[in-house]
């Protein structure tokens, strides 16, 4: 009996340790980012860093302004949400409420597959198909642009939006819908007037999750956005916060490298904010 008890304690200890490992990593990354990110911001000046529109990190008189990256990330994410949310939302309503079992199985499978595709593959397809396509379609000299990145991001966030929304819609109590139907509402009326409002916190969480994915994506957008540090323009070459870090990190040194860490810190704060919003919505949906 005593032996059994000791064994139980031992296993509990292992689980506790593994749980703490995760917490430890989060703390480690946070502390490291703050320590690594602060010096450059100090040296450049926080206002100059955040609001200067010129990024020329290797010039003889370097300039480290990341406003173009911040705006590009915001616009790019907003664009992806504007395109992705209606598609994802309606798909999830269809799958959760309207679709026959067979279609549901096939479409859900496709959505899961979409979630499993590595981002570099999205980037590659975007680079080979989407970028030349945009160039021809809009008769512009080069297709690598904010627009191409928005389309890639919109597709990439679809699975998160669809899956989370479906879960939220399926959690709506059956009685609500039955009551609505019994009062004479049509099924479609019921879904949009009763089910969706009842699931709205969950759907909001899905959108926030999509924002989080879009703002954190680096590889795919790096391959289609052109990467020049310009102020954002729909058909212009742009650089995101993520790609600013990723594209220059390998060759960087000195203040340039420190500034890249500072960009990562800014990105980290953005994502923290989004996570806080996500937690807020999820909590509300539970209540």
């Amino acid at each position, binding site marked *: 009996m005593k032996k059994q008890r000791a*064994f139980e304690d031992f*296993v509990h200890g*292992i689980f506790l340790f593994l749980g703490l490992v995760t917490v430890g990593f989060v703390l480690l990354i946070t502390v490291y980012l703050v320590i690594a990110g602060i010096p450059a911001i100090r040296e450049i000046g926080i206002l100059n860093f955040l609001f200067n529109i010129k990024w*020329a*990190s*290797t*010039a*003889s*008189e370097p300039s480290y302004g990341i406003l173009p990256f911040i705006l590009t990330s915001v616009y790019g994410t907003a664009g992806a949400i504007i395109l992705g949310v209606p598609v994802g939302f309606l798909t999830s309503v269809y799958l959760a409420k309207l679709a026959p079992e067979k279609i549901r199985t096939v479409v859900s499978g496709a959505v899961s597959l979409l979630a499993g595709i590595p981002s570099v593959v999205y980037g590659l397809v975007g*680079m*080979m198909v989407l*970028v*030349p396509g945009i*160039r021809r379609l809009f008769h512009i*000299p*080069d*297709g*690598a642009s904010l627009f191409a990145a928005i389309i890639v991001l919109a597709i990439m966030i679809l699975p998160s939006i669809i899956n989370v929304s479906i879960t939220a819609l399926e959690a709506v109590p059956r009685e609500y819908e039955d009551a609505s139907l019994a009062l004479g509402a049509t099924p479609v009326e019921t879904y949009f007037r009763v089910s969706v409002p009842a699931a709205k916190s969950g759907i909001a969480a899905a959108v926030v999750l999509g924002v989080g994915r879009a703002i954190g994506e680096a590889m795919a957008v*790096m*391959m289609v956005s*052109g*990467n*020049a*540090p310009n102020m954002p323009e729909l058909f212009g*070459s742009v*650089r995101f916060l993520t790609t600013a870090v*990723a*594209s*220059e990190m*390998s*060759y*960087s*040194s000195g203040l*340039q490298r420190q500034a890249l860490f500072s960009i990562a810190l800014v990105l980290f704060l953005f994502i923290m904010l989004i996570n806080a919003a996500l937690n807020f919505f999820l909590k509300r949906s539970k209540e």
Partner: protein
Amino acid sequence: MKKIILIMLTAIFTTSMLTSCSSQTSSTVSTDGSTSMEEVIGILGEAFEEKFGISFTYNPTGSGSGIQAVKEGRCDIGLSSRNLKPEEKADGLSETVLANDGIAVIINPQNPVIDLDVETIAKIYTGEISNWSQVGGNDAEIVVIGREAGSGTRDGFESITGTEDACKYRQELTSTGDVITTVSQNPDAIGYASLAAVGDGIKALSVGGVLPSEDTVKDGSYVIQRPFVLVTKDDTELSEAAQKFFDFATSADAARYISQAGAVPVN
């Protein structure tokens, strides 16, 4: 329960074994640096491993990181695709030029332009010339493709053409392969890439009437070229294995491997 513990123990043992393996560095040569030198170093490293039976590692991080790594003693030999800056030499590093590499100016095969001089190329990259018709091509806007800040190829290209900090890039891509793919897809694009990497799907321009090739890089008539440099530390001696590699790479024997990789050996 027991099963889980067994799995965990196995995992712990495997990781500890792996870590103990990687700390065994006595008979390896580690190099770190320029991504442009990948082909040259790849072939040299393979030949070296075969000849001496010493294992060889190459970490393609970029010239700046490679120089930093050798300075901090994280690798035996640093690889740089530019000459060392005076302040780097003052830090106790020295350079040995291994080979020269031409930087080809590349365009899409559909583009009728075949020759530009350095001055015109510089004007295109600074945005002074923005339409192909100004240099005898079709009436189309020039799409200027380059590499990211800090890249050895960009540094080499900009310093040779005198366009430092003045280039107006439409796209800044992070690898030679990306530049080649992008140029091969866009008929109005112009880009630059290591001569060694030039292949199908794109056209290398002649510069001032001289086509980039091994011969024209060697005799200096093709002007857009840069050195491939081995970087070593002055105050610490190379390990026996690293010295062997250094001697091998700079020997006349290695020249054929270097030219096989598309660069031009100095010895």
